[in-house]
């Protein structure tokens, strides 16, 4: 189920929209490899809190980022059929999006609550994220696009992946110190 966008105006990048809880987000469609509705996330004990777990995708392992946690979204909104959005790996990326450079060589993805359309908003329609958006989320957004369905946060993928990396590092440090504390009474 690869998104199959309509013929596009080459100057406008296509955005794949999705819903996460009550909020809507989008990312360049050229960065999405595939979307799945049947999948099972296997959690990894001891993993950083922003890693939901691993998915077996036809024999390959996909690391599932908890995007809602990274955006510091409040849990909410009835979760309907959920989907796994799998990003392209760097070697699969053929587009010209600057974020393509940020893609990982490994399979990475996240779970969304509902898939939206693929849209091609004009550059001008993109506004800076309003102050009401938290700092964590704002740093991960390229801007907000006011669509007919409401405002959609456009993700800056390079930032999202870099942030996931930083948090993995930070959690490793805290795990190490926790292990040291727990080991002390032994």
């Amino acid at each position, binding site marked *: 189920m690869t998104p199959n966008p309509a013929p596009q105006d080459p100057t406008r990048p296509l955005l794949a929209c999705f819903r996460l809880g009550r909020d809507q987000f989008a990312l360049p469609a050229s960065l999405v490899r595939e979307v799945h509705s049947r999948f099972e996330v296997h959690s990894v004990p*001891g*993993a950083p809190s922003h890693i939901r777990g691993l998915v077996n995708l036809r024999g390959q392992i996909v690391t599932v980022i908890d995007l809602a946690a990274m955006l510091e979204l409040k849990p909410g909104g009835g979760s309907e059929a959920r989907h796994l959005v799998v990003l392209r790996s760097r070697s699969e990326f053929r587009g010209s999006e600057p974020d393509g450079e940020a893609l990982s060589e*490994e399979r990475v993805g996240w779970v969304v609550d509902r898939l939206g359309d693929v849209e091609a908003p004009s550059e001008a329609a993109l506004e800076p994220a309003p102050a009401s958006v938290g700092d964590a989320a704002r740093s991960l957004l390229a801007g907000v696009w006011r669509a007919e369905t409401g405002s959609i946060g456009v993700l800056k993928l390079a930032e999202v992946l870099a942030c996931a990396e930083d948090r993995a590092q930070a959690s*490793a440090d805290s795990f190490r110190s926790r292990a040291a504390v727990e080991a002390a009474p032994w």
Partner: protein
Amino acid sequence: MDQEDRELLEEFKAEAEEHLGHVERFFVEIEEAAPQVRAALVADVFRALHSVKGTSGFFELTRIESLAHAMESVLAALRDGEAEFTPALSDLLLGSLDKLAQMIAALPELQELEVDAEIEALTNALSNAEAPAPSAPVAETGSSAPKRPAPRASETIRVPVRLLDQLVNLAGELVLSRNQLASHLSGAPRETQTMIQGLDLVTSELQNSIMNARMQPVDTVFQKFHRIVRDLARKLGRHVRLELVGTRVELDRSILELLADPLTHLVRNALDHGIEPPEERAAAGKPEEAVLRISACQRAGQVEIEIEDDGHGVDPERIRAAAVARGILEESAARRLSDREAIDLIFAPGFSTAEQVTDVSGRGVGMDVVQTNMSKLGGKIGVESDLGRGTRVRIRLPLTLAIVPALVVEVAGTRFTIPQTSVDELIQPAGRVQRVSGQEVLDVRGSFLPLVRLDALLGLAPACEATASEEGYVVVSRVGGQRFGLWVDEVIDSEEIVVKPRPHLLKHCAAYAGATLLGDGRVAMILDVGGVAGCAALAFQGLEARPQEAAPDAEGVVSEMVVFANAPDEQFAMALGDVLRFERVPVERIQRVGEREYLPYGDGSLELIRLEDRLAAQPAAPDVTEMFVLIPRHGDRAAGILASAILDTVQIDRLPEASPGDGEAVLGRMTIDDRVTRVLDAARLVPRATGGPA
């Protein structure tokens, strides 16, 4: 530099490295070769360097080009008899070769090394050279060249490793798609089923072939030893002849890459510690020239590498003394060790017998690191020595790291896998857990084993709850010579798992070596026992005050036994330490070839031994559909013992009663669970049955 240039450079680099690898070996051969052969070799080297020079000129790699050019000029002079080959010249050429290799290794980055000194020295060497007496005529190239396998360029092509890895992944995807298709069409007509079986077969073969494509001959590593041995022998004043055997045996490239350093270490050790100076050898009545033999062979689905020297061997007495002097063992404990056990002490951390530290070896970091590296590769290492006659180090490695046998365990409802190579034994801890210096330990045959509760460590259960229970199993493992136990709830199965690297975002989870997919499609993490021990910050100190426990020995003084049956009313037992693992197999997988029976196993096959053929025993009931194969830990051949049921594992603290009438494969009899049980000697059962020496 654009992408295309980069790719071209990468290609040049690979090609040049191949050339230089040959050149290095030729240089070493040149030194030893007869004049006529020498001329042919020089011509070969000249051609290889010439090709490197040509291409580097094309890329405007001026320093590489000019250095290669200077070397080429010297070689041309040698070839044409205008200069004479001397050890000094050879050193100069080898030194230049190193610089060349270094610059090429840095590609596609440009590394501008200072090469003027080399070029000048090479040029001087040329101008100082006097034409030698015409007694060494230039041989015709070709006719007298040493025999080498003819190049088979047309049969091979270069493929990026990335592409191979991708193929492995795709084959995995294909397997899963096939499985889904098969389950979806399970009710389909017979014809469809046959087609799916065809697909099944092709998929498996495809996967095997791709795995094979990752294999490389050990020669890629062995080749380097010509140079290393030569340099070291010269430095240490030894006369050494290097023999390489089995250079075409193949190993997965990922293993080969990691094998080079430990092997180099062993070779250095052999030259520094094993092989005596020529005078000493002559005094001992040995030929002055020592032989260092490195061999590889494939057996029982594994590759065995041996490094053998004819030096003075390892003196167990000296090892004992050194271990006591270095505080590794108490004197009384050292005296109790058998010679074999004493020799194994060289793997203890911090051990060294070298009276003086040289820059070659003897710093006391060494064999323990080699052993740790080997176990990371899933390999085993052992040392045999004949005092005064030589030392043999034997390494066993799996063919590939991509697929390894592993134990599947469950902790708080989550499944994990532990590579079998990390598993020493399995123990039920109930009633034997104590606390020593605040640490939970397991009393195993009189020594304390530190315990790690995986559920608490990985945050799967609150620490207080976890420490209450004594249920479950302890997987005994070894890290750097220290044994410790991993406490798990359940041992599910033993499986061949496909190892997937640890995902990047989980790279800080040191407890895991990677991930794998279980048969049911679940993702399970592969535990890294070293990492687990590190996370738990195990306190080993103070626990080993008691002498190192004795391994369960052949007399079975205290040991863990696996109890099994063949015919329902006959019970047998075998030391668990002798059993590598058991496999459950449907009887239809057992194949008869001639008089023997085999089980297809990995790439090869496992010869099966039926107890009733080896000793007075009843055969298994004819209607069993499934049997167990016990695979012994020792023994050179791929063989397994068939049993119809695994009944139990038990702790035995007494000796079996000798029962000579039962034959040599039976150690004796004892009563286990109120039943007379014959205790089998795995070592005698297997080699005898396969027709080898007992």
